[in-house]
């Protein structure tokens, strides 16, 4: 039985990765998960310098999911190269670093620092809804997305994944723009912008007022968007958005995802990644599927 998938020349032992921002660099989940079992660890976004992030409250629960407005707090690329990269290098899993910035120059600086590291791919975060400058500003119109993708591709020595925002009118336009600008893969969806109001205190629950929604409640939207993008582009798609278990992961693959990422579900079930891997194998056995690649985009009529 083959569970390996290949994205932009990078082979993952299985299609299950972690969604950026929900797993740190894996250290915090070592008590629960054998990181060697994962297809890839996608790190929390890292910038050229440390970012403080947003004021608290940064997280709140909503029906079937949660809102977060962390604001990309991160320790900066210097400490990340010293601490997080060597840690992940000691594990038998692919390393995908999520990169964030306020300006194209800041993204490029991080990309260049990672070029000669053991990182397999870089995921470019142009879709975080919780920062005012940069990030999502590049992910909500095709012109800006094209420009940043081209510039990063011109400097990157590793395959580039552009992480797309669902907070657009037509995500296939963004997928096509990323592909045309040279992206090696796309990942979707980032969180959906949401809001929660405390009716007793008559105040916004999150200090940032809005936050990105994740969790099982957003899954049907994510499946639809993965499907639409799979029809629109030829580059591989990493699907995410509300995946909690093997059934969810398989649904994304049938919709066209070559790999999947587990995000908020880690908070609900810290064993979600490894349980999903086992569940996919059980499904393949039960369905007599020898190669997991048979599942990718199998539902399209």
């Amino acid at each position, binding site marked *: 039985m083959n569970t390996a998938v290949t994205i932009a020349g990078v082979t993952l032992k299985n299609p299950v990765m972690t969604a950026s921002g929900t*797993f740190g660099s894996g250290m915090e989940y070592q008590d629960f998960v054998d990181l060697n079992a994962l297809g890839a660890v996608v790190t929390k976004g890292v910038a050229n310098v440390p970012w403080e992030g947003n004021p*608290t409250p940064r997280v709140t629960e909503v029906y079937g999911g949660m809102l977060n407005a*962390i604001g990309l707090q991160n320790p900066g690329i210097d400490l990340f190269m010293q601490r997080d990269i060597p840690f992940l290098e000691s594990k038998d899993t692919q390393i995908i670093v999520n990169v964030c910035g306020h300006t194209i120059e800041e993204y490029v600086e991080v990309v260049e620092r990672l070029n000669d590291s053991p990182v397999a791919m870089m995921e470019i975060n142009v879709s975080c809804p919780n920062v005012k400058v940069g990030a999502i500003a590049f992910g909500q119109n095709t012109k800006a997305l094209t420009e940043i993708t081209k510039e990063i591709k011109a400097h990157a020595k590793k395959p580039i994944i552009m992480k797309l925002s669902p907070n657009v009118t037509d995500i296939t336009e963004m997928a096509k723009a990323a592909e045309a600008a040279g992206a090696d893969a796309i990942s979707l969806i980032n969180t959906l912008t949401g809001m929660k109001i405390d009716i007793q205190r008559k105040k916004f629950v999150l200090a940032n007022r809005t936050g990105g929604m994740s969790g099982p409640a957003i899954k049907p939207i994510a499946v639809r968007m993965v499907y639409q993008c799979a029809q629109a582009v030829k580059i591989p798609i990493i699907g995410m958005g509300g995946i909690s278990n093997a059934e969810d992961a398989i649904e994304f693959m049938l919709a066209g995802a070559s790999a999947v990422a587990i995000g*908020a579900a880690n*908070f609900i079930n810290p064993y979600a990644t490894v349980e999903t891997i086992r569940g996919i194998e059980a499904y393949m056995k039960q369905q007599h599927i020898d190669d997991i690649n048979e599942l990718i985009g199998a539902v399209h009529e």
Partner: protein
Amino acid sequence: MTQKRKTNVTITKTKQLATGVYEMILQTPQAKEAGAGQFVALYTKDRSRLLPRPISICGIDPEQETLRLVYRVAGAGTGEFSTYREGDTVAMLGILGNGYPLDQARGKQALILGGGIGIPPILGLAQALKGENVTAILGYRDRELFLKDDFDQVCQTYVATEDGSVGTKGNVLDAVRMLEEKGELNPDIIFSCGPLPMLKAIKKYAEERGIPAYLSLEERMACGVGACLGCVCKTTHKDEHSQVNNARVCTEGPVFLASDVMI
């Protein structure tokens, strides 16, 4: 280092202690690994409410392998917990957080201050410090003095109530000042847990006296294990892990030295 786990644990006892305040005893071998001031997070059975609820540990019995939790119903999640009965199971994530540094209290006059639902975690502390020179001051709303009897068994205990029905009228700091004036209190170190205004007042008081104060902070959490960076507090120095002036309440905390945090 102990290993964090998510497990289903059996509830061996439940009891209502006061209006909106409940007790739950959990059977778990992880009781052997727990310390005063640490916490666990409990999951509801309602699949629309997904995030675990952080609840401080009130008491630890390593021999019986039980943890005692005392919590206030703050919403639908804790409301569900309050309906559980002996023999039910609950999914628990733990053991989480750093806990109080007990060694700092040895040989000193320790003052432990708890306000409202901040009282349960400092009971575990008072029990762990039994035999040391410890004074506890507990702040309640009214005459519903939950856990007061447990404190009486292990240390000198005073009470302040908002409505003045028992003890000093006012908050725990009012009681502290009153005891100081009477010459009955001269602390070297403070351990506390309670609402933010109380912790702010304790931080100020400790600074004035020039003594260390350990505060247990509360913040909205998602993962509980240090990954999501949801529950940070502002720190006076650059935090080693984050490289900014933010520390994770779930991991570097919940107990912080007052002079290390900006609250």
